[in-house]
């Protein structure tokens, strides 16, 4: 601790504190452009100059640490005139086109000049201009360098946080321009974090361009509806059209960062194809109907008790709605047949929840990042959970820790890894078991270890496609660390035979006295919430035991195909597009005697329905999302639902009330009270939403983490791998699926910004494979599987594993679900040039 005097006020701060932070702690304002808590300080803007007694020159406070006994002046006449001088220089070449600039009204330069500026320029010379017209960098980013204040935040955030390294500073002095080479964003993540950190109107959103002024916008605090990272953001609308989503510095775990989906993918809200009225099938076609008619049909066709009914709810609904949905089925319809995922087996989900210790309560990602070793496995984190990727990159760069990435595909985060492992797709089990074999496991006399003990390392290595020394290095690192964090992704759910190995590794490391945290990396915003609300055939709210286990999505569809299902209620889920084996799903859904689909778009599933109910998007309701860490976060309502559409909460409640008038609770607040009672994990979760700007780096709101469940009725089941579809000679590539960086499920397909970034399907293979086939990046190829054929654009990726082709599951023109066959393993494909 050191004691310094700031403007005559004595303050004691930690060693190495920056003068800037010490002054702010003492309650003095120091203006900055280039300083940001989570970026490396460079002291380039000179706004934070302070006077240190005994030093002749003013010092930049954002890069100067305090020393004991320092006497610092932040308000002296020299400092004040220096600030004004800096601003005068900044304005010397500044375009001063505030009336045209999109940043006008929320511009830091405007505020600074208003507050500290000279209010009068003395430069009569013509201004230097980089260019006359703004230039478009990408379909979502436009740039005007004439407004730049050379704070270099954009370059730093691109390098240090996003890791894309697209931006750089060209030239020097006042000719320094922060841009990309050739002024084009060839390989950018398009996440727009450069826009968010830019203090002036230099980087701008193209979709937002010249649409409004910041003071016209009305905003609501919400959570991104795409992946389960749970980034806090504010969406803002003008005249009922949502035109901007922005992150806030120091708010939420993401602070100022968002990914492309979060920042630009909100415009599905105002898509003209939104459902605005209930539809009822009449004479074979869906026709607009009234709510009374639609509800009447539901009441007539859903049987209470007797018949077999099922329900599938989307993991994009809020907790209150999901809770009510499972309550509707379990108490009103007396049916345990509910599920929240169309892609994954309920048994796999239960095993995963147990293996990832999700029932033990929330795990903060900041805790994971404070561990000695971080193992990322089963997730293409950079594409599936980009902001989690940013957090890992940012924090791991600043402390000594091992970052181990085991993944079949190369990803952006690889550059942050201290140990990299390329394994074969779907072979996470072999990788983990090989690691376990290399750890000293003798102290765990457990039946569960038996299969691993029997396994032979060579066999495991060959199925994993990994090298012995890589596995040994990982095992050594895990063995040497006292705290281990594992980020386990959705590939475990895609290849459920790997789940026991995950649980085993966790138990083994724990038995050796290590602190092990597992963070599940999920790809739907409220997937964890859906499970914790009990929208699962095997467990109830708070992972509690249920009397009667039901059918999951797969079982429901199988029953439907046999003609045994009387009625199916699908809320927000596009089963027909997402179920792996699209043909089977379509056939099964058509065979359902009465299909109700509640959605915001007329999806492939809704087209098969007898009754379609228009629901509300995340901007049109209030509720709670639980992110992958188990952080419960409130979303707020911004707009009313369009047309006759209603909140999903009201629809589910109305369906329940039509059978049982006492069905309830009647409003979301009361539902939350009931959730707190029924699922004790949520009992004392604090939902106090702190939207205050927090310039320090305190992003971890621990009060929002859910607690552990007292009695979790979960067990890890050993799931036998499914037989491969075969045909390795004919189809040389194993198909790998997941989400694309710009798309998440089918929702982002309704956003014109996201389809503007990427509309048609792409297939990604390694560079080596492409060379062997004589294919090049950007070629049009035909992708042929045993069941399906589609045309796509080829992308090659350096460093990915061989014999594997990645196709995102988001594109209608390349329906990945149709490559799959029910009950079979991963399909194989052949790629030929068109």
């Amino acid at each position, binding site marked *: 601790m050191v004691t310094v005097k700031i403007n005559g006020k004595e303050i004691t701060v930690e060693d190495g504190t920056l003068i800037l932070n010490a002054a702010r702690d003492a309650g003095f304002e120091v203006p900055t452009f280039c300083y940001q808590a989570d970026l490396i300080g460079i002291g380039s803007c000179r706004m934070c100059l302070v006077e240190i007694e005994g030093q002749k020159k003013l010092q930049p406070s954002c890069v100067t640490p305090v020393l004991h006994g320092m006497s610092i002046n932040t308000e002296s006449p020299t400092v004040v005139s220096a600030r004004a001088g800096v601003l005068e220089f900044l304005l010397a070449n500044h375009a001063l*086109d*505030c*009336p*045209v600039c999109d940043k*006008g009204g929320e511009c830091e330069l405007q505020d600074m000049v208003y507050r500290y500026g000279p209010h009068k320029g003395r430069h009569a010379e013509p201004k230097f201009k980089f260019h006359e*017209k*703004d230039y478009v960098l990408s379909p979502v980013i436009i740039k005007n360098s004439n407004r730049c204040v050379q704070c270099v935040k954009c370059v730093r955030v691109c390098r240090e946080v996003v890791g894309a390294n697209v931006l750089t500073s060209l030239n020097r002095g006042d000719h320094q321009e922060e841009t990309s080479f050739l002024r084009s964003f060839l390989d950018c993540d398009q996440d727009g974090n450069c826009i968010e950190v830019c203090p002036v109107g230099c980087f701008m959103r193209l979709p937002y*361009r*010249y*649409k*409004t*002024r910041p*003071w*016209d916008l009305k905003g609501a605090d919400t959570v991104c509806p795409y992946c389960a990272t749970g980034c806090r953001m504010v969406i803002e609308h003008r*005249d009922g059209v949502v035109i901007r989503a922005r992150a806030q510095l120091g708010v939420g775990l993401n602070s100022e960062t968002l990914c492309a989906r979060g920042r630009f993918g909100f415009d599905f809200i105002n898509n003209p194809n939104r459902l605005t009225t209930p539809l009822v099938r009449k004479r074979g076609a869906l026709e607009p109907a009234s709510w009374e008619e639609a509800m009447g049909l539901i009441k007539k066709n859903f049987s209470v008790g007797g018949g077999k009914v099922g329900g599938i709810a989307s993991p994009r609904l809020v907790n209150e709605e999901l809770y009510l949905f499972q309550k509707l089925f379990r108490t009103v319809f007396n049916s345990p047949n509910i599920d929240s995922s169309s892609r994954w087996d309920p048994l796999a989900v239960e095993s995963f929840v147990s293996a990832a210790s999700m029932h033990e309560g929330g795990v903060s990602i900041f805790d994971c990042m404070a561990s000695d070793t971080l193992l990322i496995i089963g997730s293409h984190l950079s594409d599936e959970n980009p902001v989690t990727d940013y957090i890992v990159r940012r924090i791991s760069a600043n402390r000594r820790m091992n970052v181990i990435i085991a993944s079949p595909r190369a990803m952006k985060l690889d550059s942050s890894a201290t140990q990299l492992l390329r394994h074969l797709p779907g072979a996470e089990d072999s990788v983990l078991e090989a690691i376990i074999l290399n750890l000293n496991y003798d102290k765990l006399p457990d039946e569960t270890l038996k299969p691993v003990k029997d396994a032979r390392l060579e066999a495991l290595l060959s199925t994993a496609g990994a090298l012995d020394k890589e596995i040994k290095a990982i095992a050594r690192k895990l063995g040497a660390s006292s705290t281990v964090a594992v980020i386990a992704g959705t590939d475990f759910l895609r290849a459920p035979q790997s789940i026991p190995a995950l649980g085993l590794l966790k138990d083994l490391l724990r038995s050796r006295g290590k602190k092990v945290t597992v963070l599940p990396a999920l790809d739907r915003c409220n997937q964890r919430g859906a499970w914790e609300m009990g929208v699962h055939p095997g467990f109830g709210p708070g992972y509690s035991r249920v009397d009667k286990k039901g059918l999951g999505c797969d079982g429901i569809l199988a029953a439907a195909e046999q003609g045994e299902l009387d009625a199916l209620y699908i809320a927000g889920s596009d089963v027909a597009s997402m179920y792996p084996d699209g043909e089977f799903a379509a056939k099964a859904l058509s065979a359902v005697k009465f299909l109700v689909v509640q959605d915001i778009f007329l999806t492939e599933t809704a087209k098969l329905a007898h009754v379609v109910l228009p629901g509300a998007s995340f901007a049109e309701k209030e509720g709670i999302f639980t992110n992958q860490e188990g952080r419960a976060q409130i979303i707020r309502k911004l707009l009313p639902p369009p047309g006759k559409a209603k909140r999903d909460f009201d629809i589910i409640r109305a369906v329940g009330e039509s059978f049982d008038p006492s069905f309830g609770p009647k409003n979301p607040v009361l539902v939350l009270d009931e959730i707190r009672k029924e699922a004790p994990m949520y009992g004392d979760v604090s939902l106090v939403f702190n939207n205050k700007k927090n310039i320090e780096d305190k992003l971890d709101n621990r009060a929002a983490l859910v607690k552990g469940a007292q009695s979790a009725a979960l067990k890890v089941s050993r799931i036998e791998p499914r037989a491969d579809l075969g045909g390795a000679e004919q189809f040389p590539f194993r198909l790998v699926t997941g989400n694309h960086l710009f798309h998440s499920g089918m929702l982002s397909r309704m956003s014109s910004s996201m389809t503007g970034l990427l509309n048609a399907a792409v297939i990604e293979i390694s560079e080596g494979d492409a060379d062997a086939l004589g294919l090049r990046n950007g070629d049009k190829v035909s992708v042929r599987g045993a069941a399906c054929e589609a045309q796509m654009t080829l992308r090659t990726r350096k460093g990915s594993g061989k014999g594997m082709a990645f196709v995102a599951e988001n594109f209608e023109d390349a329906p990945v679900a149709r490559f799959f066959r029910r009950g079979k393993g991963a399909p194989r494909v052949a790629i030929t040039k068109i």
Partner: protein
Amino acid sequence: MNGRTKGFNLLELIKKVVFTDFVKGLSITLGYNVSRSITQRYPDEEKWIPYRRWRGLHYLNRDAEGRELCVACELCSKACPTQCITVVPMEDDSGRGIADRVAKVWKVDLVRCLYCGYCEDACPTRAVRLGREYETACTDLASTVRRREELLVPQALAENIEGGVLVKSRLVRTPEGIKVEPDLRRHKKRSL
């Protein structure tokens, strides 16, 4: 009205005999009879042309090349105390405006407007001005909202006309409504 009223006052008596007060009053009345009339025969024969400082109906300016000066910065609508101005910007780099940001919508609700002129003070490009048009009475509420297209049409009184005069005018009745057509050549100073 003190001690003197108690006694006899010859002067007062003479004033009463010759009706001094009456004549005084009558002379004012008769004076108006012979002086020039101050009644403005508006709208049938005359019309008041206001000074340039007058704050009447808004108009939007163009620059010398005919490009719109408005860059849709919305400062006018922000400055407006009654929120009667609505501006919606858009991008148009075809040269319609002086910048590539132009107004998609620029409308003012004249019923709400209190003609304070804050909008023209706020305007960074001197695009919006309060003109000298004051005949905004109408029977139809819809026509009290003036849009960009109408406001871009130059007003009848050019900026260089001094104003502050009464001019001969003519009341014209057309199927579209009535209007007063001033004849700017024949004007007189307003006598007060």
